């Protein structure tokens, strides 16, 4: 079982609240989403493992058991080409759960007309494998869901 931590502080709102059908329909995988607290913040690693992919707006951490968790910082943020994001780690780095990976400011994302909502997705997981979803206020590093 994998305990997946909240990568950012905010409100756990569920994938259905993500304004992008690819995430809200669970096409990328099961999980939840966090509407982040506004203002400068750091997005942390949801699990311990290796940073398999690191984009300014999204990253995937793969644990020792091969399970990958995707964190997407805002919706359509690939279009920003890294503006407003600062990397605090490098692709290939090994990180501990809760370790900062990207610095960003959801206020800026929102000011640019995009949703700062952050999907947190268990990749290649069955819907039924994700349980104990947190609801409401979470702080970065709090337990967000269990991946059984």
């Amino acid at each position, binding site marked *: 079982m994998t305990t997946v931590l909240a990568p950012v502080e905010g409100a756990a709102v569920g994938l259905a609240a993500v304004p992008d059908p690819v995430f809200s329909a669970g096409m990328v995988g099961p999980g939840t989403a966090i509407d982040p607290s506004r203002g400068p913040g750091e997005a942390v690693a949801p699990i311990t493992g290796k940073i398999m992919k690191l984009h300014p707006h999204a990253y995937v951490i*793969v644990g020792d058991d091969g399970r990958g968790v995707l964190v997407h910082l805002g919706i359509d943020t690939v279009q920003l080409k890294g503006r407003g994001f600062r990397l605090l780690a490098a692709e290939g780095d090994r990180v501990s759960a809760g370790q900062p990976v990207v610095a960003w400011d959801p206020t800026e994302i929102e000011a640019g007309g995009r949703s700062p909502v952050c999907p947190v997705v268990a990749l290649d997981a069955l819907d039924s494998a994700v349980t104990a979803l947190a609801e409401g206020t979470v702080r970065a590093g709090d337990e967000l869901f269990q991946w059984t």
Partner: protein
Amino acid sequence: MGERKATVAAEVGLHARPAATFVQMAMKAPMDVTVARSSGGDPINGKSILQIMALDVRKGEEIVIRAEGDGSEEILDRLADIASTP
């Protein structure tokens, strides 16, 4: 073994929406589906969004999709369509 080549046309490469759409279609196939860069490298499991993301195919890169068995030709056509959709 059946195969199709496709040049990835989405601005973001084979990530996000195109990757999710691709994997959803591949999951419908009863047989194994693999994806590799045409330029070489090990094929990965086309039903794994994690492996597709790890392959990190960019816009303009060509991939080769392989599958074998009943219905594989149709699946390959549809997967090649998804990969080459802007």
